């Protein structure tokens, strides 16, 4: 199979070379020139030269000179350099074009904000923008990865190294404790898109609306911030551009926990089964991934297009895990009626076939007897694998080889937009989009699988889930100037409906494994009544009216005010509609006074209210449905029906109001640029399942709006052109976030009394089921880890814990705060270098400081509880535990500081100076997760924002590293980018 893939790869490469050679037949000419600073005449090194409307371009060398093969038909060149105004020069008959760029007009760049764009100089809210060239490189399995560490305040983490795991994205930490805390993702105007449905290579830029004043225009879904993705489009030029980007990545195991090897295990008292197996090696492989992206773009005066196709074959490091993804995308824009009408079509289709495997195998690899063989016959065997009958103890290789867990995802995103300029300055727009996402999960446990399948004599499960969302938006925009004031007005209406339906089937007891999930009716469970079949449908709707007005007075004073009135069908009858205002203002101080060495100094302040809606529909209604069980009525069982939840007719949105103060600056001829921001956020009416008395209530929990959370932080962005000489440039960029506080001010209101605390996040089976690890307490910070204080072991090997309440006995009252899972500080330091004419080097260092993790590997598998058959961690052989004779108990012994610094990404690339018939040829090598410095002993020191134990999600279970964590990976990528 491996050969086939390689063959495919080679064939594709050969094909692209043919395309490359054929495109070289276009007539080309070479234009050369020098770029210099208009002020002092110094050459500009590493400045960008681009054929307008294409991605064909180059950068200037150490003398500020460039040489570019310009295709026939190109009309102009664009010259740009950080901190300088971009210039466009028409291509005349001359083959030499020299340009002097003026510093100080960097602020002409635009960023994408809600329902439009804004020049950077006018931005008064908190908006961060990352362009494609600044994205993370290497084996990118999800677009979220592109931004990791790039935006101050945006925390992106994926504990462990599974290519199928999703990234947790948190903006400004936790601003809510109730609903979904991921930011709202908007792709080309469509809110609520699944980021994973995009090909990372199709993304032009990602803008993040961080504060309420910027995000309020998205109303009830914006409380956790808004991420706006803009995909690449074609430009109006006369010929097409073709780009090919391809890479191959080799991923290996980077970190595991340290366990006993076969000889250590036997020496420690383990039963010797006569073999020597490194279960981590047996479970993992070098994951070889290859990715190919091909895009064509172009256009003429009235039409522009870009079409792309991307293929990714990603192998995980665990055997039988990985995914295949095919993405196709077409963006097409047509203008008509003297360019007054612009119609844009976007179409994105993605199919992803994932082998997710079972992360449970990692837990088993940790504890499985290292002297046991992988395969075995006769006694202690099942299905050809070595198996032993003990609790929670299964051959990890058998788990991944005998069973399958596949997830197929298909998404289709289609949109059409019409913009018509009614009169100069007044544009009316209509936008319609449709998003379909269908997921099919197929799981099969073999008849020979000791873990689950054997007991059920084969078990098949299939889940089909379909989402169908539609959006209709009508907007009008008007822009005018009077005196020295520029005014923009936006007004709009938005209607979005969401439908989610699906079916679920589970049945076991098969005669043969041959069918897997493909012939469910063959399961004997149906005949015995134990098969499960289910279907469901949930709908919801959002309707909004919104408007915004922007003023720019003399490029010095700026004001932006927006208002969204939005309703959700999920809210109670009397609380359907909410108001979400946002207002921000800024002043450019450099325009008011002369300050030596200061190029730009803008002070801005914003206030905004954003919301969050409940995840589930119908929670405000009184509903009845079939209960889990039937009842016996006169000799037969008949269905029992009853209420499905407590009704809350007052359910409403959660509101977050925040103040954001920012300072944007540029000094020393734009050598040092950056911004500093402070935010203070108050979240109220948090949507929480709340304990209520029964009766009068039917259930012990009601979804209510309750409580108050306050958090604040400081964010810093610094960019410094540190070295900028003839043959060497160094450009470091630093992002930093300090989380100042997370105060759970209250979790009660007049109707609902929280009591003072709740203990959550059970440690788990075996034996530590009633062992909460996190305390959520009114008046305290979030993220508190909670448990005993370890002092040592007594002579008989029993735990000694601190008697914190001094009553002479150790009981649950002696537990205390023993850590905090939320970090204090996060930073990303990007260093980009150019040297030697064509070489580029990028080293990205990322760190998170101050968070603790519960190392559950240690909490379960450190002390020798049953060494005769269960392996333990190497640390368990410490003399401290020599006499250990107690049950495992959770304490601060297992809470570790997980602060870390990583060399997250290092890329070295070389661009051919004279790429010949290509417009661009670049080779690169990337290393991901190259080095991790941390004192943490578990698999991955990444922050854990939520916790799931035995299927139950704890949204505030922050800081628990679970035993099923997929081992972290280190990857090396070889890649090539070609432009034709």
């Amino acid at each position, binding site marked *: 199979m491996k050969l086939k893939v390689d063959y495919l790869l080679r064939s594709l490469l050969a094909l692209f070379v043919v395309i490359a050679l054929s495109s070289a037949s276009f007539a080309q000419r070479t234009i050369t020139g020098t770029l210099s600073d208009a002020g002092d005449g110094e050459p500009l090194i590493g400045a960008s030269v681009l054929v307008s409307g294409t991605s064909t371009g180059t950068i200037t060398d150490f003398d500020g000179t460039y040489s570019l093969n310009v295709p026939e038909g190109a009309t102009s060149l664009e010259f740009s350099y950080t901190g300088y105004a971009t210039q466009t020069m028409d291509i005349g008959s001359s083959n030499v074009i020299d340009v002097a760029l003026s510093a100080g007009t960097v602020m002409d760049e635009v960023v994408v904000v809600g329902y439009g764009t804004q020049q950077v100089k006018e931005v008064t809210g908190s908006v961060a923008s990352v362009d494609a060239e600044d994205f993370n490189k290497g084996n990118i399995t999800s677009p979220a990865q592109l931004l990791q560490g790039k935006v101050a305040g945006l925390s992106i983490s994926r504990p462990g190294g599974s290519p199928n795991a999703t990234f947790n994205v948190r903006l400004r930490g936790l601003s809510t404790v109730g609903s979904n805390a991921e930011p709202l993702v908007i792709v080309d105007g469509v809110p609520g898109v699944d980021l994973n449905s995009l090909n990372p290579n199709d993304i032009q830029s990602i803008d993040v609306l961080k504060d309420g004043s910027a995000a309020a225009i998205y109303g009830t879904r914006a409380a956790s911030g808004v991420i706006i993705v803009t995909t690449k489009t074609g430009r109006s030029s006369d010929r097409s551009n073709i780009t090919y980007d391809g890479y191959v990545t080799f991923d290996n195991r980077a970190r595991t926990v340290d366990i006993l090897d076969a000889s250590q295990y036997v020496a420690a008292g383990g039963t010797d089964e006569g073999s020597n197996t490194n279960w981590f090696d047996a479970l993992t492989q070098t994951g070889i991934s290859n990715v190919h992206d091909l895009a064509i773009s172009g256009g003429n005066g009235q039409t522009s297009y870009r079409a792309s196709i991307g293929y990714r074959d990603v192998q995980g490091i665990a055997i039988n895990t990985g995914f295949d993804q095919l993405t196709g995308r077409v963006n097409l824009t047509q203008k008509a009626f003297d360019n007054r009408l612009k119609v844009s079509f976007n179409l994105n289709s993605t199919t992803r076939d994932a082998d997710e495997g079972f992360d449970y195998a990692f837990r088993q690899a940790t504890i499985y007897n290292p002297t046991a063989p992988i395969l075995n016959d006769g006694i202690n065997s099942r299905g050809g694998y070595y198996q032993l009958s003990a609790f929670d103890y299964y051959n990890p290789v058998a788990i991944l080889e005998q069973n399958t867990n596949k997830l197929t995802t298909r998404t289709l995103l289609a949109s059409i937009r019409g913009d018509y300029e009614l009169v100069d300055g007044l544009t009316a727009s209509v936008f319609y989009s449709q998003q379909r996402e269908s997921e099919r999960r197929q799981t099969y446990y073999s008849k020979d699988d000791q873990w689950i399948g054997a007991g059920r004599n084969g078990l098949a499960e299939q889940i089909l889930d379909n989402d169908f969302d539609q959006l209709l938006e009508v907007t009008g925009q008007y822009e005018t100037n009077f005196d020295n004031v520029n005014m923009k007005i936006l007004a709009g209406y938005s209607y979005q409906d969401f439908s989610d339906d699906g079916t679920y089937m589970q049945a076991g007891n098969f005669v043969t494994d041959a069918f897997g999930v493909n012939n469910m009716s063959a399961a004997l469970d149906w005949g015995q009544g134990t098969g499960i079949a289910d279907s469901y449908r949930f709908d919801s709707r959002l309707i909004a009216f919104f408007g915004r007005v922007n003023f720019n007075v003399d490029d010095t004073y700026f004001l932006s005010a927006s208002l969204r009135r939005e309703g959700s069908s999920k809210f109670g009858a009397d609380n359907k509609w909410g108001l979400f205002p946002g207002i921000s203002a800024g002043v450019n101080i450099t325009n008011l006074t002369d300050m030596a060495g200061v190029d730009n100094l803008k002070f801005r302040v914003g206030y905004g209210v954003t919301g969050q809606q409940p995840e589930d529909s119908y929670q405000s209604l009184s509903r009845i449905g079939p209960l889990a069980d039937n009842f016996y009525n006169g000799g037969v069982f008949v269905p029992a029906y009853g209420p499905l939840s407590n009704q809350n007719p007052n359910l409403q949105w959660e509101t977050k109001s925040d103040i954001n103060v920012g300072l944007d600056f540029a000094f020393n001829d734009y050598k040092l640029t950056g911004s500093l921001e402070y935010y203070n956020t108050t979240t109220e009416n948090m949507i929480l399942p709340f304990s209520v008395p029964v009766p009068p209530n039917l259930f012990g929990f009601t979804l209510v709006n309750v409580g108050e959370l306050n958090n604040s932080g400081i964010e810093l962005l610094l960019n410094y052109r540190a070295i900028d000489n003839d043959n060497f440039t160094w450009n470091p960029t630093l992002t930093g976030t300090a989380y100042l506080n997370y105060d759970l001010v209250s979790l009660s209101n007049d109707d609902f009394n929280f009591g003072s605390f709740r203990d959550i996040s059970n440690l788990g089976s075996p034996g530590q089921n009633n062992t909460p690890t996190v305390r959520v307490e009114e008046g305290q910070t979030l993220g508190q880890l909670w448990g005993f204080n370890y002092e040592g072991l007594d002579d008989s090997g029993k735990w000694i814990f601190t008697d914190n309440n001094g009553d002479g006995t150790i*009981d649950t009252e002696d537990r205390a705060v023993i850590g905090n899972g939320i970090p204090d500080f996060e930073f990303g330091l990007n260093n980009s270098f150019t040297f030697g004419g064509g070489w580029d080097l990028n080293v990205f260092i990322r760190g998170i400081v101050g968070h603790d993790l519960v190392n559950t590997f240690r909490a379960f598998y450190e002390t020798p509880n049953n060494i005769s058959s269960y392996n333990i961690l190497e640390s368990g052989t410490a003399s401290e535990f020599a006499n250990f004779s107690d049950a495992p108990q959770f304490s601060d012994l297992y809470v570790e500081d997980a602060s870390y610094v990583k060399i997250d990404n290092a890329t070295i690339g070389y661009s051919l100076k004279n790429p010949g018939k290509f417009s661009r040829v670049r080779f690169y090598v990337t290393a991901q997760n190259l080095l991790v410095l941390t004192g943490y002993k578990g698999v991955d020191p990444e922050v854990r924002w939520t916790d799931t134990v035995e299927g139950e999600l704890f949204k505030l279970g922050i800081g628990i590293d679970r035993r099923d964590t997929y081992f972290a990976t280190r990857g090396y990528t070889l890649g090539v980018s070609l432009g034709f």
Partner: protein
Amino acid sequence: MKKILLSKLLIIGGLLMIFNQSCTDLEEDIYSEVLTDNFYQSDEEFTAALGAAYTSLYGYLGTVGPIAAQEVSSDELMVPTRGQDWDDGGHWRRVHLHQWTSEDPVISVPWDFCYGGISTCNRLIFTLESSSQPGGEAFIAELEALRAFFYWLLLDYYGNVPIVTEFDVPADFAPATSSRQDVFNFVESELLRTAPLLSTNVDISTYAKMNYYVAQAILAKLYLNAEVYTGNARWSDALAACDELVNSGKYGLTGNYYDNFNPNNGNSPEAVFAIPYDRVNAKGFNIVQQTLHYASQGTYQLQAQPWNGWCSLEDFYNSYEDDDVRKSNFIVGPQFNLDGSPAIDGGVEDNDPDGGQLNFTPEINELGPNCLRQAGARVGKFAYEVGQNPDMNNDFPIFRYADILLMKAEAMWRMNNGSADALALVNQVRNRAGVDPFASLTEDDLLAERGREMFFEAHRRTDLIRFGKFNDEWFGKTADASQAPDPGRFDPEVRIFPIPKGQLDANPNLVQNPGY
């Protein structure tokens, strides 16, 4: 130019009007559920709705439900900590040692179970009262009697609890604690009032349902324990309630004790009130998982690996004579796979004298944390099926006729401890078990016989309290008086559980029980 603009605006306005109908409509469309207002349209829907009252009983045997409160706190059963297994924050050991806290699940889950059932009954009574459903009054009586059953459990477990009979109350309704005497009076009066309205049929139509005789059985329990509940003995009332069942002639002892407990035990003539557990329709009886060893999966070809937890105390096991057929209530000795090969315990401790073949020994080395994995006689009273899934088919008798006979004997004996009738009743039960009749009856004989007959039927804690033995010393536990940090909880007048902390947090009108 202005005109053109105006006409264009009109066109856009017209487009907006087209979807104007729905453009601000936020009513929810509901598909896989039904709004309560649209339900109760047919007899079938009413019947299904009433079923919810009975399905709320299925949690009776949950891992930390009433069965755990009644059995694990007693001298019948224990859940030792076996190395890394079953520590669970120590709460199983705390139940055994009578050191439970108001946060322990064995305290909070039975409360939720009872009030969940009460709340469902209140809701259905309210629904029936506000409808014109034919036969509604009989249904209401049935629901009120069932509600009284839940209140009897609360009276027994917690003593002082709030009495809520209304459904249509404000959202912030916070009921206040009633005294144990008041709860007793409420249960008594409700049962006396509703019993005459209930069916006196004892057949398939009332199996696993509340009928006249179930109401009498609850009354019998109420009166037999009245001295514990209120300080005033009601022996003759207990006797009268038992006689309602005995004299009806509608019940009898089965010839084979185990006909009451096997997987096909539905409609046993001994079943007074049963939960009709079923692996498809009525899930929740999973002692097979709780008690059996991991390696027992091969013995019964179980669909899921068991959890190796619950076992009986050695002294209790030894309270059975060897020829007592009821000694098969336990599984002891070497275990084999279905094919006859030895069942191998892959995780056996080095210090287990029994070695690799699974061997259930009645002796238990310690309560924990290093209880041997194979230690302890296992619960085998409700026969397991080959190919068993975790949800068992065996119906569970909440009240059983043999219990009624023993209660009648006890009531008679309490009034006259030389009663020959009492002796005859006890010997009737002993005779079926194949053991020699008693020549005379002592209080200890009565308690021991109840233990042997009623093992694992969720009565032991109540019985021990009534016989004054609940606070005694037994394996792994010293007498409560010697260890009590809070003497109040072991006050002979009290012996009740604390009000769960979560309930006190949620309802400021509740009062914690004395001693907690």
